[in-house]
């Protein structure tokens, strides 16, 4: 069983974020990904493993090679995390706007 790591911890690392960006436009093999970084190949492999464990990436065997793909639904999960916070402020600011609009004529 895969240990489900914290997604936020996974994307806190700059190399892992760079990998996600790289895979945003295309799927790539581990070798092709590693060629974009100065870090050692095993280090990149470790990053890929972490990203796969928290389901930010999926891997698929194509012939001899394994291609890594970005899993868009997991990224949506991150966006959804911010959403309640955004809605909280949206509600407050909507209220602010409504209150201050009523107030315009008297105080200026």
């Amino acid at each position, binding site marked *: 069983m895969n240990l489900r790591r914290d997604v936020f911890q996974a994307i806190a690392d700059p190399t892992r974020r760079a990998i996600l960006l790289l895979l945003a436009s295309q799927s790539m093999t581990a070798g092709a990904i590693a060629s974009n970084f100065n870090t050692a190949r095993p280090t990149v492999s470790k990053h890929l493993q972490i990203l796969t464990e928290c389901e930010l990436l999926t891997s698929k065997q194509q012939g001899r090679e394994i291609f890594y793909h970005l899993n868009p639904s997991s990224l949506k999960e991150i966006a959804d995390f911010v959403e*309640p916070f955004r809605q909280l402020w949206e509600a407050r*600011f909507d209220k602010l706007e409504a209150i201050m609009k009523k107030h315009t004529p008297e105080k200026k």
Partner: protein
Amino acid sequence: MKTAPKTQVHAEPGKQEIIITREFDLPVELLFKAFTEAEFVAQWMSTNVVKLESRTHGSWRFETTDPKGNIHGFNGVIHTLETPNKITRTFEMEHTPFPPQMEFLEFEPITGETSRLRMQIIYKSVEVRDNMLKLPFAAGINMAHNRLEEIMKK
């Protein structure tokens, strides 16, 4: 058609800040007043304003009562206040493990009748920020859970 939400939140992974931006159909002076006059703050923040010294080196304290009747205190100091463009202040939730956060509020006119707010919040660490972001998320789950409990009791 879906329009872009008025309030935008930018929380880049791995950073210890959140940026909230919003455009208002209000002149910048009026928008600024919503943040500096106790009666307005009390209304839109749904809180009791215990103290609000809207000036450079002033301090503030709010008390908010939750639906269960518990009182939560919030306080901070106003580092800089420049009418109607800028408020730099701290924010702390009392009796919680969260350290104070620094808030930079910038108000700017777009037209005579519209304005923009940019609120940059800096947290002590990336972890603190992420936990803070999770708060409303957790509160939402709790609320749903409580509602479910109420329904089940009936």
